[in-house]
Every structure is written in C-alpha cells, then in structure tokens.
C-alpha cells in the first residue's frame, strides 16, 4: 500500500508524542513492505527531503508566516496541500493518514482532490488540553477537530479514555472509532554503556534518581512533583530529582524549585538528545509521570521498557497503561502528598519494585510493539480502501 502520512511534527521536530508515534508507525509500515511518504514541516538544520529508515520524509517549507498561531497553521496547511498535490501528480497514494487538527485542512482537501479515503488519528482534543473551550481560537480548533473526525472514514485513538472523549464530545458512531495504542521501541533500550559514569552527570554515588521526562507545561503537572520533593526527602534524603525537558514554564518551575529550600536536590537538564534521554532513563531509580491530562503517556511506556519502576497519576490514558500494583504505582492527580507516597512505596520496597518492573517489561513486549501497532493500522487502511 502507498500511504501519505501528514503530521506537523516528525523527528527531529519533536513537540510531543505525535513525532514519536509517526516515526515508530511509519518505520514499521515500511518494514512490512508498504510505502510511506511522510509530509511534515521544515525544521532548522534538517533537509527538505530524506529517507529515514526507509520512510520518505518530505519537509514542507513555510514560505509565508504570521504571528497569530491559528493563521499560521492555516497558512502552513496551504503549503502542505500544495506540496502533497505535486507529489500525487506523480504517484498517487492509496490512503491519507493525518495526525491531529494541525493538518486537518490540508488532509481534508487531499481527500477530496484525490478521491482517496482519509484516516485521522486524534492524539488529544482541544477541550481536554485547555480544560474546556476558552476563547475564539479554542472554538475554531475544536471545530477543526470535529470537522476532521466527520470527514475521515475512520478515526484512530490511542486509549479508551480518548475513545470516550471523541465519541461523546464529537458525537461519533462508536464503530467509526478504533483504539490502537501508542508503541515503544523496546530495542533501543538494549544499550551497553557505563551506567555509573553516566549517573555521575546528575548525582554523586549513593544518591538515587527520581526522574521526570516531558514538556514543562501545566498539563504535565511537574509542579506537584517538585512540591512533593521535600516530603520524599524526609524519608529518603539520598534522593535527587532530575527534570528532563524544556517548556515555557521552565522559569516558573525553577523559581518553585528554589522555594522548596532544597534547590541542590533538583536538577534541570533542559532538552536532551535521544541517546542521552535513553541513557538517563536507563540510569534512573524511579520515573514519575505526574500529568494532570494525558491521553496516552508514551513516557510511562518508555520507563516500563527501560526497566525502571513507574509512578503515574491516575488520569485518562495513563491509568490504562499503568495498572496499580501490577506494573506500576498510581497516585492521585495534582496531589504532592500522594506522589510522595508513591515514590516512597517504590524506594522503600525493592522486592515490590522489582516485581512491578518485571511485569511491566513483559506487558510492553506483548502489547506495545510498533509492529503489532502497524498491523492493526494496516487493518484499518484495508477496511477504508475496500
């Protein structure tokens, strides 16, 4: 099959889970003998066209910008559409697969021009991200999301909670919505490196790493983890909190870190390249995912694949990946006390932690491999092409 995949992010342009998702999925599709053209946006330092593990990656130049976000999105959709039209003048694709509303306009136009079916993956919704619709832009984005789910032949979501959200918020027939989870590349965690010397980047010997990985934005709930740190330190003075990632809240969070009175126990790494991120995951003692909104939570999966115990908040998609007491620990969302309890549960009972990690690893191998996910996705493509 020939698949045109549209996404506004693809490595190295990484915003959130979509880039990882597209990369993992496209690579596995190619491995299975399909042809994937990834149409995405330019990124400083990346070529306009290249093959990445067999995936043809086309990076569209945005020739005209605009300071307003929504206007800018509609403008770049035009350039994507133009680019896709030129591509299809050569070889036509069999199916168009778009990811999130940012590429709605371009993908819907392609569907009508080419007369080919559209598959649309909803990774998150505006109403969920912003906690309700706030302001003109919010309503327009919500409208674009609804419009895409309406135009699409099939809608893919990554979790049960997202399925509930789109079926109820966009009033979709349940049969139109397929749940295919995110995957994780288990192989990349089979890495040989000097763990102790890498750890010394962050901690001195004897110290233990409590890790956070993610964007520094409100929905990730990092502030609750920082607030939990003094409580964790009471019973585990050897703990150090390592915060990986960048975001517009970083100044606020650093201020918050100072206000705990133990700034020396909190380390902000900023953005990390993929290899360093993997090594950091492999070096940590516990991974905390304190999100307050999380349609899926790939980072929890990565922690599980890396073999470190995961403490996650009991919200949305996260609670479907992490099962309390079986493959991880769930805590109350937005609750520092509960997070401190969860971390303490892991750190003070090594046997318990070990059991969780073993279960988690087994589950990740079985349920979340990209090949399995690609097979599910192909089934959806085949359905819509019939």
């Amino acid at each position, binding site marked *: 099959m020939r698949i045109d995949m549209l996404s506004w992010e693809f490595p190295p342009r990484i915003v959130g889970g979509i880039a990882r998702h597209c990369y993992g999925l496209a690579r596995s599709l190619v491995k299975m003998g399909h042809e994937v053209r990834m149409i995405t946006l330019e990124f400083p330092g990346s070529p306009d066209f290249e093959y990445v593990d067999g995936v043809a990656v086309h990076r569209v130049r945005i020739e005209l910008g605009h300071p307003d976000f929504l206007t800018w999105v509609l403008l770049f959709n035009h350039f994507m559409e133009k680019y896709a039209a030129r591509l299809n003048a050569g070889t036509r694709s069999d199916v168009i697969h778009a990811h999130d509303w940012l590429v709605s306009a371009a993908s819907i136009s392609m569907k009508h021009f080419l007369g080919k079916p559209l598959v649309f993956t909803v990774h998150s919704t505006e109403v969920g991200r912003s906690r309700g619709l706030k302001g003109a832009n919010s309503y327009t984005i919500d409208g674009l999301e609804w419009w895409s789910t309406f135009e699409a032949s099939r809608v893919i979501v990554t979790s049960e909670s997202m399925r509930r959200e789109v079926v109820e918020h966009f009033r979709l027939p349940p049969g139109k919505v397929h749940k295919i989870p995110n995957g994780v590349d288990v192989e990349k965690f089979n890495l040989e490196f000097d763990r102790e010397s890498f750890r010394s980047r962050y901690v001195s010997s004897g110290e233990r790493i409590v890790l956070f990985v993610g964007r520094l934005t409100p929905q990730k709930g990092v502030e609750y983890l920082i607030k939990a740190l003094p409580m964790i330190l009471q019973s585990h003075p050897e703990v150090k909190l390592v915060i990986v990632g960048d975001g517009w809240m970083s100044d606020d969070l650093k201020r918050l870190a100072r206000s705990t009175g133990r700034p020396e126990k909190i380390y902000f790494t900023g953005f990390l390249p993929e290899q360093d991120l993997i090594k950091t995951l492999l070096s940590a003692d516990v991974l905390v995912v304190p999100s307050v909104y999380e349609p899926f939570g790939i980072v929890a999966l990565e922690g599980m694949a890396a073999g470190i115990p995961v403490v996650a908040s009991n*919200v949305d998609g996260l609670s479907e990946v992490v099962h309390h007491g079986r493959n991880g620990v769930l805590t109350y969302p937005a609750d520092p006390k509960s997070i401190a309890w969860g971390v303490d549960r892991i750190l003070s009972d090594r046997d318990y932690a070990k059991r969780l990690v073993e279960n988690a690893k087994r589950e990740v191998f079985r349920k979340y491999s990209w090949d399995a996910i690609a097979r599910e996705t192909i089934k959806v493509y085949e359905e819509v092409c019939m």
Partner: protein
Amino acid sequence: MHVIMTYGKDSFDRKLPEDFSLLCMLSNLGVTSRETALSSEEIAERIHLQTDSIARLITKLIDKGLVASIEVENIEKFYVTLDGVRRVLTLYS
C-alpha cells in the same frame, strides 16, 4: 455527557510569559534563520506589540539563548535559535 476532569485548573489559566509570546510570534513568522532575521523596527511593524517592550523582551530572549542577533549592513537583526524553536514547540501537543 462525558465530563472532563479538571485537575490543576489554576496553572492552566496561567498567562503565557510576555517574552515567550513574542518568541512564538517570531517563530510563526518564520524568523528562524540568519536569512530571515528581522530588525526590531521590522518586528514592531509585523507584530502589533507595544514597540517599547520589544527591546527588553528581545534582551531577555537573547540572555536565555532563545534568540540570536546578527549584524546586516550596520543594522542589528534577530532570529529564533534552534533552542528557541524547541521552546516554542513545547506550547502545543
């Protein structure tokens, strides 16, 4: 009707920092390379932002390494760095 739980509502209503908003606008304008760099006059023209704040916001962004400056024909021009582009992208998901 599916009710969306609202944890941590307060921080969701937090306003974006002013310098970050400017960074996003510059990035959306496509000012992300030496070739597309703009002077502060040009920025003021294209972004309807109180012209007085531009200078100090840019100073902040440069200090954080999110914006860089170059000199073109005796005029200082500014563009968003790779770190700046990454920082902008954290706004969305």
